[in-house]
C-alpha cells in the first residue's frame, strides 16, 4: 500500500519532470525538470530495494551530471532563443504522427496480444535475492563482472583525458 502511494507520487513527478524537459523554452527549466525526474527515479529505485543504485543515482546523476549541465548552460548562455523555423518540412506533424502510432501500437500489443512485460518473471518474489545493499552489489561486481569493472575504469580515465583535450580548443589562425 505504501509502495503504491509512493509509486504514484514519484511516477507523476517523473513524468512531469520529463514533460518539462521537452516543452520548456529555457534550458535551465529543462535541467531542473530533468533533476526532478532523476530524483523521482531514485525514489522508484528505493521502492524496488535497489538502495545502492538509488544512492549512486542521486550522487552521480543529480549531483555531478546535473551540475555539469547547469555549468555548461550558464557558459553557453541561457538567453538564446531557440530557432522556431522548421528546416525539415512538417517535422512536428511527422513526430506527432509517429508518437500516436507508437502509443497505439504499444497499447494494442499490451491489450490484445499475448504479452507479458517480463516473460521470465517468477511468481514468488524472494525478498533477500534482490535487496541491493552494497554487499549484494559488490559480490557479483568484483567476481563475475570484474573485467567490465576495470574496462569502465579505463573508460572513465579516457573520458576525463578527452574532456581536457577538448577544453584546450584553440581558435585556428587563418
Amino acid at each position, binding site marked *: 500500500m505504501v509502495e503504491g502511494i509512493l509509486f504514484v507520487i514519484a511516477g507523476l513527478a517523473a513524468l512531469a519532470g520529463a514533460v518539462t524537459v521537452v516543452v520548456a523554452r529555457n534550458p535551465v527549466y529543462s535541467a531542473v525538470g530533468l533533476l526532478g525526474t532523476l530524483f523521482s527515479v531514485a525514489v522508484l529505485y528505493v521502492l524496488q530495494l535497489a538502495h545502492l543504485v538509488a544512492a549512486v543515482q542521486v550522487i552521480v546523476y543529480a549531483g555531478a551530471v546535473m551540475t555539469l549541465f547547469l555549468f555548461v548552460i550558464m557558459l553557453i548562455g541561457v538567453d538564446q532563443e531557440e530557432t522556431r523555423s522548421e528546416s525539415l518540412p512538417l517535422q512536428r506533424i511527422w513526430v506527432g504522427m509517429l508518437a500516436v502510432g507508437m502509443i497505439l501500437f504499444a497499447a494494442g500489443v499490451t491489450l490484445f496480444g499475448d504479452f507479458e512485460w517480463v516473460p521470465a518473471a517468477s511468481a514468488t518474489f524472494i525478498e533477500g535475492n*534482490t535487496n541491493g545493499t552494497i554487499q549484494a552489489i559488490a559480490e557479483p561486481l568484483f567476481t563475475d563482472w570484474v573485467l567490465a569493472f576495470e574496462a569502465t575504469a579505463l573508460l572513465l580515465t579516457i573520458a576525463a583525458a578527452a574532456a581536457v583535450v577538448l577544453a584546450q580548443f584553440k581558435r585556428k589562425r587563418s
Partner: protein
Amino acid sequence: MVPVDWYMALAAALFLIGALGMLLRRNALVMFMCIELMLNAVNLTLISAGRVMNDINGQVAVFFILVVAAAEVVVGLAIIVAIFRRRATASVDELSELRG
C-alpha cells in the same frame, strides 16, 4: 507490492517522452538531456525486471550504465562547448558543415 507492469509502463512513457524531445528540440543541450531521460527509463526497466526475476545482476547492469553515462556526459558536453566556441550556437540545425 506494485505489479511490475506499472513500472514498465512508466519507463515506456519516460522513454517515449525522451524520444519525442530528441526529435522535436534543436538545442543540443536539451537533446542531450533527452538522451539522459531515455537512459533513465531503460535503467528503470532493468531494475524492475531484475527484481521480479530475482536476479541482482539487473542492478549491476544499471551501475555500469550509470558510469558509462557519466563518461558520455563529460565528453558530450565538452564537444558542445567546443562547437559553441567555434560557431557561437548550440542549435543542431546550424551545424551543416558536413552537408554534401
